């Protein structure tokens, strides 16, 4: 196989039709520390499995409420495709939670907090009329902000060659890259939807500020929770309590996203001329989906059903 770098291209695949893929993963052979000998990095990424099922179900509920407000045919199609992709992402990550439980790490206390956050705090709040619609637009702005992060993370995992080199579990890597590729594939939808139904800068900036703060805090809490409750670690890795500096170290080693990249996402998003299509590579996302075992199997099953 030729390993030369791909030629630089300006012709990114454009105007993609978004369709959910009915992927399936078998976790029966997964180690609890699926990046071998890297429990800290494993748990940093594991936080996603705790956050995403409830978070993405919330995206779906909020987006479903937004559908009747869309007056553009193409955007409606994009939003409907986005909803299905997010719904499948949520269930795919929820499958990993069962696996953690089977290894003696009960994720329930953390997941219940996240469920309460999304369903109650960020739920419908008993509003009506103009205020109800404004709350919908605010939540769409929060989702647009989070989606900038998911696109950054998606691009990171597509690029993260180091994860292959250290022998990361291939099924987990396929889950993360299939998900990452779909996040890159649909990265413009939440922003375009927000710009369609509202478009105000103040709401978008405020929502990003809150979303970035909440995500960062929840992530740190999630890592602490996992390390303390991991039956093999019981709060210590090599006899030491995890340190914040390990996040920088493992970021530099390419095992987890680098904090500098995550911090840079905020000013990037706050630029007045921001558009998600300026960041990340659709070509790379599409190319991964063309080799992903889970996506290939899903599309083959879909073709079989259509015959």
């Amino acid at each position: 196989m030729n390993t030369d770098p791909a030629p630089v291209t300006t012709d990114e695949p454009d105007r993609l039709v978004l369709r959910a893929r009915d992927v399936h993963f078998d976790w029966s052979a997964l180690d609890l520390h699926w990046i071998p000998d890297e429990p800290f990095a494993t748990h940093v990424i594991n936080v996603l499995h705790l956050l995403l099922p409830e978070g993405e179900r919330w995206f779906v509920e909020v987006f479903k409420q937004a559908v009747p407000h869309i007056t553009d045919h193409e955007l409606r199609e994009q939003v409907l495709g986005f909803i299905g992709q997010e719904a499948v992402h949520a269930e795919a990550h929820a499958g990993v939670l069962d696996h953690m439980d089977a290894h003696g790490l009960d994720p329930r206390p953390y997941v219940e907090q996240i469920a309460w956050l999304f369903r109650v705090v960020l739920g419908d709040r008993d509003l009506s009329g103009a205020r109800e619609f404004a709350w919908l637009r605010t939540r769409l702005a929060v989702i647009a902000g989070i989606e900038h992060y998911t696109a950054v993370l998606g691009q990171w995992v597509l690029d993260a060659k180091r994860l292959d080199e250290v022998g990361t579990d291939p099924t987990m890597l396929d889950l993360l890259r299939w998900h990452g590729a779909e996040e890159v594939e649909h990265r413009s939808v939440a922003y375009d939807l927000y710009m369609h139904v509202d478009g105000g800068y103040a709401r978008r900036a405020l929502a990003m500020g809150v979303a970035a703060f909440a995500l960062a805090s929840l992530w740190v809490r999630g890592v602490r929770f996992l390390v303390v409750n991991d039956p093999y670690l019981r709060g210590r890795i090599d006899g030491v309590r995890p340190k914040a500096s390990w996040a920088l170290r493992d970021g530099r080693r390419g095992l987890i996203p680098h904090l500098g990249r995550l911090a840079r996402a905020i000013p990037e998003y706050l630029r007045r001329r921001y558009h998600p299509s300026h960041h990340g590579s659709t070509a790379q996302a599409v190319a991964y989906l063309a080799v992903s075992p889970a996506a290939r199997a899903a599309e083959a099953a879909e073709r079989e059903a259509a015959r």
Partner: protein
Amino acid sequence: MSDDRERRVGHHADPRPPTDLFRSGRPDRFMLGLARLAARLEPLTARLRPGHPPPKPTGDLPVRVVRTERPSPDVAVLTLAPVAPETTLPAWQPGHHVDVVLDGGVVRQYSLNGDPSDRSRYRIAVRRIEGGLGSGLAHGLREGDVLGLRGPRNAFPFARAERYLFVAGGIGITPILPMVVAAHAAGLPYRLVYTGRSRSGMPFLDELPEGPDVFVRPDDEYGPPKAADLTRGLEPGTPVYVCGPAPLIAAVGALVPTGTPFYSERFSPPPVVDGRPFEIRLGRSGPVLPVEAHETALDVLLRVRPGTPYSCRQGFCGTCRVGLVEGEPEHRDRPTGGAPRDGGFTPCVSRAGEGERIVLDL
């Protein structure tokens, strides 16, 4: 395990704030803080004005049929140009298709097939399908007829690579031809295998680049194709693009090894199989709507409520799922990852027995 799972991730939120993560018993202060923050921000953001007034609905793009050709009796090649003079059509890439709005609002998708750099016209090719409504309407179009277009959209992304294998079967050449032309023009190594019953029924033979990279393979000269013949010489890592009848795509896909990119156009959801007519009622005292044998309950819902959310139309994503109030449904969904159905009904695929009525929580 499923009960357990339902309790954990599928449960309905308890309105009380959850307890602290580590010293169970007390409410979690961080979570309470986030709740207070949201309660303060909500009234504040209610006062923020939208950046613009609500957008006006966008319509379909009107185009005129400026040329019709019949390269073979069952294929119509239509050239479409914008009705409004001096209008440029939206840009497209090989693999893109348009939604064509035909008589009576019938919408069909056809791949674009002309020259992407010519923004004054689009070209599509339609194969006549025996008894097919859309292809029949498209074959009835004459020069000067006006129709609506949506898109273009991309369900068959053509990604830049160092070399390609293209496999086309019959009318499947339509999206492949612009890909081949682009690869040829870029000087990239490629191979095209183009199959069909006989040369006379294979469109665009005269537009294929000349050379040893193009293998035209009609069945009446070479016999029925075997997938292994079509992928012969495929080097691992060479992206494979296939378009044609479903069995051809499946057979080629099965031979493309893991790690070698495989691209095919994604089909529209399958038609209803073994459907019987039934009825849905929207709420206990709502209207009763008949669902015909050939349509889905979702099709019926969308007619009366166009804002109804849905997504996969294959019964796995759960987007269109609604509560079931009464009746004996015939569940045909297969929720992804085995997620619980939670007493719901999935109108994109699920049905009821002949003449039965089910009441939906709508």
